């Protein structure tokens, strides 16, 4: 196989797997939340309800694709596509196994941070274009929340970068051959995990779309496939956070040889996704000011102290 064909195959397979994985995740999350809340969840369509995704997709495709007359038409249409694009683009730099991965950027980690920081635009422009008070409140919340959580998301990763001495994600994984970074960087892991949940705005940090207060927050006016783009984008970003934590803290594809490297990667990612779903199923949503003061008064100092101690230990 020629290298161009190999790369093309890589790109297409990863794209398809990510999008379908995210779609499957909607089913998995509903089933798991059901189990943890002593219910069954969707179990009617197909074996164990797995075809529920197909049913949902048909429903969303058949729905009227409605653009409100008061909406800012161009931005209203671009925003959901952008939401999807940003998270899928961030997947490009994630190395899944030797030879599996789209690109091998020297600034891979920075590219990831750049893409997550652009993710706010989808929410904000979607909220602005809707011209709806709930959407606008959701958009304002999203902007403040994501900008402040980005700060220590980046800071928490600097410890890992210091230990590995590179921004290249493939080299970062290889640097963990002697020991995963979860050991020395447990605080960094905790901060990045929280920030990852906040960046993908899921419960308990789902204030931009808090159903009880803001109907659906920034995507109140969206329906049909435009809503589905936001919805699937959220699950892709869950997968992305989990994959990123696997790469940065759990040694990526590294593991005993009796299991293929890609298998190890998927296994670790899946375990983290389960943890995220468990957190969604159990923790309540904080008040908005609590969220902000938690971010700036607890997480940021913690990230700085972590950075300081890591740097000091490396120098010694």
């Amino acid at each position, binding site marked *: 196989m020629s290298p161009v064909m190999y790369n093309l195959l890589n790109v297409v397979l990863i794209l398809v797997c990510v999008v379908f994985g995210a779609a499957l995740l909607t089913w998995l999350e509903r089933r798991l939340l059901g189990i943890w809340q002593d219910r069954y969840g969707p179990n009617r369509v197909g074996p164990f309800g797995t075809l529920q995704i197909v049913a949902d997709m048909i429903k969303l495709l058949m729905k009227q694709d409605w653009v409100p007359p008061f909406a800012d038409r161009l931005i209203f249409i671009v925003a959901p596509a952008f939401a999807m694009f940003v998270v899928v683009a961030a997947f490009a730099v994630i190395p899944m196994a030797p030879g599996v991965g789209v690109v091998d950027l020297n600034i891979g980690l920075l590219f990831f*941070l*750049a893409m997550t920081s652009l993710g706010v635009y989808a929410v*904000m422009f979607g909220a*602005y274009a809707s011209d709806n008070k709930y959407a*606008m409140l959701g958009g*304002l919340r999203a*902007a403040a929340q994501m*900008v402040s959580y980005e700060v220590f998301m980046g800071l928490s990763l600097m410890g890992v970068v210091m230990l590995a001495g590179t921004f290249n994600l493939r080299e970062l994984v290889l640097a963990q051959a002697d020991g995963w970074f979860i050991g020395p960087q447990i605080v960094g892991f905790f901060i990045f995990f929280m920030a990852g949940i906040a960046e993908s705005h899921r419960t308990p940090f789902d204030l931009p779309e808090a159903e009880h207060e803001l109907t659906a927050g920034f995507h109140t006016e969206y329906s049909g496939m435009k809503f589905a783009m936001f919805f699937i984008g959220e699950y892709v970003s869950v997968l992305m956070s989990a994959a990123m934590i696997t790469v940065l803290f759990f040694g990526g594809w590294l593991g005993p040889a009796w299991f293929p490297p890609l298998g190890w990667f998927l296994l670790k990612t899946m375990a983290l996704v389960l943890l995220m779903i468990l957190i969604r199923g159990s923790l309540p949503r904080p008040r908005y000011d609590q969220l902000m003061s938690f971010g700036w008064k607890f997480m940021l100092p913690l990230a700085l102290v972590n950075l300081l101690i890591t740097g000091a230990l490396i120098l010694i």
Partner: protein
Amino acid sequence: MIWAYLYNIVFYASCGVTVLATILMISRHNAVHALLYLIISSLSLAIIFYLLGAAFAAALEVIVYAGAVMILFVFVVMMLNQGQRSAAHEAAWLPARGWILPSVLAAILLSLLLIGMYSDQPLQPYGVHGVAVKDVGIALFGPYVLVVELSSFLLLSGLIGAFHIARKMPSHMSSNELEEVDHG
């Protein structure tokens, strides 16, 4: 073969996008549309940085400018929520003759740039060597450490100023709090 020219094609395409987006950003009446074009302009600028070998600058352009500064702009615009009324105002404020002076100034700059580019001595060769993140770090904390420290002073003063503004003033206290202060 088209692949041989891919670099040039991408470079000039992103240059064109940058110029076009910036022009559109200036001429839009709707503030949010203008911001959208500004963001596109800074993103294509990041691509140009990357093609010129400054990968770190490209990433920072996206993270800091597109990802944080512009969001604050959008935030403020959304908070004010001007809508159609302000777009009409903008249209009234920007008559055709208002464009004359800025256009002349921009034309002078453009001609300077063109003279620099097409004269016998080019301003700077581009696309030759990449600047790694490590080089940037060494430069920042080696020869330019004084600048870094000065800018950190600037940030610190900004921080103190923000703290001072956000601090609760005694005159803003409610009567309850004042009583508490009185009783010690």
